[in-house]
């Protein structure tokens, strides 16, 4: 079982993930229409790129009004996303497995750091969950799929924590490890097909709106508006 989930299944998941996200980007760009969107994307590419860069800069870093207005939520969100992306990619055990399979490797995090990052992801996830259940503003927007997506995103971290620390928890180390790998694969496969597609579509959307503002809504005039 371990060999299957960590071998062919992992390969399939990565393939679906990579092909899926590339397809999402390609379809997104193909679906842009200068006249329908009312943005002269290609005619004013330079202004567009400037606007896109400004938009990404202000939102990838906490240099925006939303962070100023909602520091706690945005702080947790930034932490959640940074840890969620960094921890698994630079986790020693993951890099070792990739190196042994494909002979490529990169720098790794000390396990202790990755461990704290995992806890941060889980804690942030619980914060999001509670917020969804309690805050009337979020409650009215929440659908079942929001919970499912949150679960898909958190599961690899919770099970990863259990497996790394070799906690028994009714199943034992090897079962938890297999569950962990499966959860990771479910997440990879889910990314192109669910709201998790914001993994790439966030960038598409931000770049598009940045171009809109850079090209049309004031990019050419004034000091430029950041979003």
């Amino acid at each position, binding site marked *: 079982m371990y060999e299957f989930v960590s071998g062919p299944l992992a390969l399939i998941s990565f393939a679906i993930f990579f092909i899926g996200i590339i397809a999402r980007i390609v*379809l*997104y*760009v*193909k*679906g*842009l*229409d*200068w*006249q*329908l*969107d*009312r*943005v*002269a994307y290609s*005619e*004013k590419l330079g202004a567009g790129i400037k606007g896109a860069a400004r*938009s990404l800069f202000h*939102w990838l870093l906490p240099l*925006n*009004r*939303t962070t100023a*207005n*909602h520091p706690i*939520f*945005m702080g947790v*969100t930034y932490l959640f996303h940074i840890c969620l992306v960094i921890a698994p990619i630079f986790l020693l055990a993951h890099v070792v497995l990739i190196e042994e399979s494909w002979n490529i490797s990169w720098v790794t995090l000390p396990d202790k750091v990755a461990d704290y990052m995992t806890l941060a992801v889980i804690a942030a996830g619980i914060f999001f969950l509670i917020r969804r259940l309690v*805050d*009337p*503003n*979020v*409650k*009215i*927007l*929440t*659908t079942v799929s*929001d919970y499912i997506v949150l679960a898909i995103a958190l599961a690899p971290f919770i099970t990863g924590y259990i497996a790394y620390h070799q906690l028994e928890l009714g199943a034992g180390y090897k079962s938890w490890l297999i569950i962990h790998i499966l959860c990771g694969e479910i997440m990879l496969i889910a990314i192109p097909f669910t*709201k998790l*597609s*914001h993994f790439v*579509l*966030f960038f*598409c*959307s*931000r770049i598009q*709106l*940045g171009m*809109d*503002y850079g*090209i*049309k*809504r*004031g*990019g*050419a*005039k*004034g*000091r*430029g*508006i950041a*979003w």
Partner: protein
Amino acid sequence: MAQEAKNQDLPPLVTRKAVKTKKELDILLADKGIRYYEEMEVFPVDTAALKKTLDATCKSRLRTWLEICAHCSLCADSCFFYLANDNDPKQIPSYKIKSTLGELVKRKGNVDTQFMINCMDTAWGKCTCCNRCGMYCPHGIDMGVMFGYLRGLCFSQGFVPHEMKIGSCMHWLYNAQMDVTVEDYVETCEWMAEENEEYYPGLEIPVDKVGADIMYVVNAREPKHYPQDLAEAAILFHLAGESWTVPSKGWEGTSLAMFAGDWACCKQQVEGVYAAMERLKVKRYVGTECGHQHRATITEGPYWAGRKSGEPPVPGFHYVEWVLEALETGKLKLDPAKKIKEPVTLQDPCNYVRNHGLTDVTRKIMSYIAEDFREMSPNREHNFCCGGGGGMNGIGRYRKERNIGLKVKRDQILATEAKFVVSACHNCWDAIRDLEEVYKIGIKWSFLKPILLDMVIVPDHLKPKEE
């Protein structure tokens, strides 16, 4: 029974097609919206057409926005309707678009009449397309853009507020938002020039002067209701020594069609203005103190007209840009002694600030005209909509909602402790006037032109000759 029978004899008011004839317009105008909304209650949705439109026009940008919305509610307090309605979750921009356009897309257009009426009531009654929410969404989702799109869908199905239907019809018939013909307009220009020539010798309102530097385009309200505004513009151009003209055909720059979501009409309207630019071979366009005119003619217009560059045929400027240029280059000189002494604040119109980046121009003008300028908070591109944008001021059906929404602007103004609001936008001007009428907070409001005219120093050679 008698009433029903009577209704059956009358031509229908609610139609999926834009109204383009005088006869139909007169019937619409006579109705005042009563039979109109009754008819709408039972007006069927053409779901096949709706699906076809969605397939053809709802592309990746909109679909992605709908899909990746994280339902985080961070857009909530960006919306003045949410704030004005005591943080009602049903006023969260995300909720408003998700329950309307989101559902419409999900159901592939398979919706009923009540659903479409709800879409209409949301797209026009709970959103002014001020685009503020888009600036606060971490995912870069601009719900104002989506509501603009939804308005188009609603219009194509006949679910459009009465006044908006009329507005688009006016543009089809008169190429203006009101029933002002080219002849009416030219006459008004002549009248205003004559009226003021006595005080400003040599004053003229040159109509269709080929090769002028500036083509000045107005809002139909000005010739129709405030012709003095046209005179003020003429005097200021005259004093600044500008080479300018107004077009006969293509004289009007606003577009209620944009608020109505009648895109074909938007195209016709703006092409009229562009044709005038080309016909008169002017160097640039200056539009009057109107927000949505600037957006319709300069910002969005090129796209409706199919101009790939996204630019009008000649560079387009808002009136405030011309004013600042005239002040900075000394074409217009103001008497510093006449600066406004009392505290004064400034309304930033969404349509040329948030949607065209003119964030600092008006502030620089304020430094010439006001001694005690007080910023609203928030301001510039973060400013709240006046409360009457997107056509809202003119729609009777949403008057109650509009008046509630005005509370945010009221409180912003009150916080500055200024009693004087400068507003270089017709919609904002109206909203602030109505705000005073509803809430009576003791404020005055003004366009820039009268203020400038009060302060401007008339060069000696332009003064009337003493006799």
